[in-house]
């Protein structure tokens, strides 16, 4: 799974408020500008959007809906009855449950803690937390493969406490959701901690001082003042992480190769779609699974854009 590049949006969003304010003064076209100029500037992007965003989505839907007699849901029914379909979705939802809950708790807690530190110390911590983002994907999966191998792992003492002797003990089927959650947290949490830290910096100092004068301790200030004020970033993180997490692919793929198939090749829905397409030559069924995933991502994105009020579509 690639860590969503959009994880940095909220930082930029902070400045976007100014953009929104500016936008209100921009009802009329800027003096002297012409409409055709606008089309010219967005032309290349629109071509890419149509060719690489809209067209493949329509193509997938058409493939998924094609049936012998015309249009139908036969491929959706096919995949739904496929014996690996339900487990694949169960796997990713279990993984997401563990990951989203723990990431939300730890990211918010760590951001609050980092925020109370002196600036230089906090910069160091933020950098350490952020650095693993450099190895998102295959690299992190390999490193964690070693971390989860009881012989030679720096975390061997923890693995031994669970009586794990070899890698296959650690990657037992029941452990996989938590293993992928740890990998996702390792590469993704740092970026979010930096973002939450930025959001915390935006809280007016007077508000926090007023609470302290009223006798609020650090814990109460965090719970009653700071967390409610950064709530929308927390929601944003949850939604983005949910959408990205449903697409899990690279981690189970790498672990599958490394354990010689101990992690099934169709552990996640995306792997299932891949195998339907390239191992079984069932492209229409694969397209149906892709559409399922696309719908999950689309619904989440649309809810966030229209209801979340995070983005100023002026």
């Amino acid at each position, binding site marked *: 799974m690639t860590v969503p590049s959009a994880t940095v949006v909220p930082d930029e969003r902070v400045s976007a408020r100014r953009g929104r304010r500016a936008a209100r003064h921009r009802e009329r076209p800027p003096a002297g500008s012409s409409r055709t100029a606008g089309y010219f500037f967005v032309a290349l992007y629109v071509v890419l959007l149509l060719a690489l965003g809209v067209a493949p989505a329509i193509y997938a839907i058409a493939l998924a809906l094609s049936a012998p007699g015309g249009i139908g849901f036969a491929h959706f029914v096919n995949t739904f009855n496929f014996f690996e379909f339900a487990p694949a979705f169960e796997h990713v939802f279990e993984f997401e449950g563990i990951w989203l809950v723990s990431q939300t708790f730890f990211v918010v807690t760590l951001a609050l803690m980092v925020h109370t530190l002196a600036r230089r110390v906090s910069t160091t911590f933020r950098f350490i937390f952020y650095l693993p983002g450099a190895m998102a994907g295959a690299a992190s999966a390999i490193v964690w493969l070693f971390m989860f191998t009881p012989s030679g792992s720096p975390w061997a003492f923890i693995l031994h406490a669970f009586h794990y002797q070899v890698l296959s003990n650690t990657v037992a089927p029941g452990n996989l959701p938590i293993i992928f959650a740890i990998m996702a947290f*390792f590469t993704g949490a740092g970026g979010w901690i930096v973002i939450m830290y930025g959001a915390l910096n935006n809280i007016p100092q007077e508000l926090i001082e007023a609470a302290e004068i009223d006798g609020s301790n650090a814990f109460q200030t965090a719970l009653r003042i700071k967390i409610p004020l950064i709530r929308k970033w927390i929601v944003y993180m949850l939604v983005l992480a949910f959408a990205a997490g449903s697409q899990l692919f690279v981690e189970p793929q790498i672990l599958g190769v490394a354990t010689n198939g101990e992690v099934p090749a169709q552990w996640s829905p995306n792997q299932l779609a891949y195998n339907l397409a390239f191992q079984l030559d069932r492209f229409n069924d694969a397209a149906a699974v892709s559409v399922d995933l696309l719908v999950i991502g689309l619904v989440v994105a649309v809810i966030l854009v229209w209801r979340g009020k995070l983005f100023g579509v002026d």
Partner: protein
Amino acid sequence: MLPRRYAYRLIALAILLVFAAFFFVPMIWLILAPTKTDYQLVHESPFAFGSLATFGHTFNRVINYQGQLMLIWLKNSAIYSVGGTALALLAAIPAGYGLALTQFIGRRALLAITLVVMIMPATALVLPLFLEASAVHLLGTVWAVILPFAFFPFGVYLAYIYFSSTIPKDLLAAARIDGAGEWGVFRHIALPLARPIVALIAFFAFVADWNNYYLPFVMTYDNSQYPVTIGLQVLIGSAPIFSPTASGYAASEIYRPDLAMATLIAIMPVLIIFVFAQRTLVKGMLAGATKE
């Protein structure tokens, strides 16, 4: 009151240190692992330093693996990432400018669609993209990877935010009154002011492209085309310790320190960018949100 406050701080610091270890230990391990032999890696302390000579041997073994495959993979990664990033910038910077500072029918709709596709994980479109690439006979060419990378709505959004919040409209209006055409205004006024956002978009696009696994996994089909992310999987498949079936290829065996070295080499470009961009990433990135 005071001792209690110190107690809070101490507990907070202890928790922070535990998590710092969680994030940092794997990185340290990765740097130390190639200094050791396979035997040392398993039997010595994970934080023991082997020797620089072993590090050099491991490096050579990885680079020279099967006719310097590693270099081919790195070259492919560079072509895909640099090509994808360049095209993404070429499309995103003018588009962000057009969305922020010009008026045209459909502007709001385009902005809304951009936000939606930006949030949707790109991986959902990979299989349909493969079918599309196959239909237009792009499979087997670099464009099958570069073109999907060029579509980077997040970059358009960042450029839009930047242009709408930092470029004074009066400046553009003044230039127009002075007789500058629309392209002239963009080229001579907006673009020179956009350097920070060009750098930021280039950073995010490059890192996302370099680390991408699923798209090239689907679009490329042999070692001459694989980027280094897929190359790492090939290496794991050749490591008898993980894939016992691979032990038949005794001549091309890959050991655990080799895998660690290959991983280190694979992340090096992004790691270097991260370290150099540290100031921007951890501080400057938070435009309007910094404490100081």
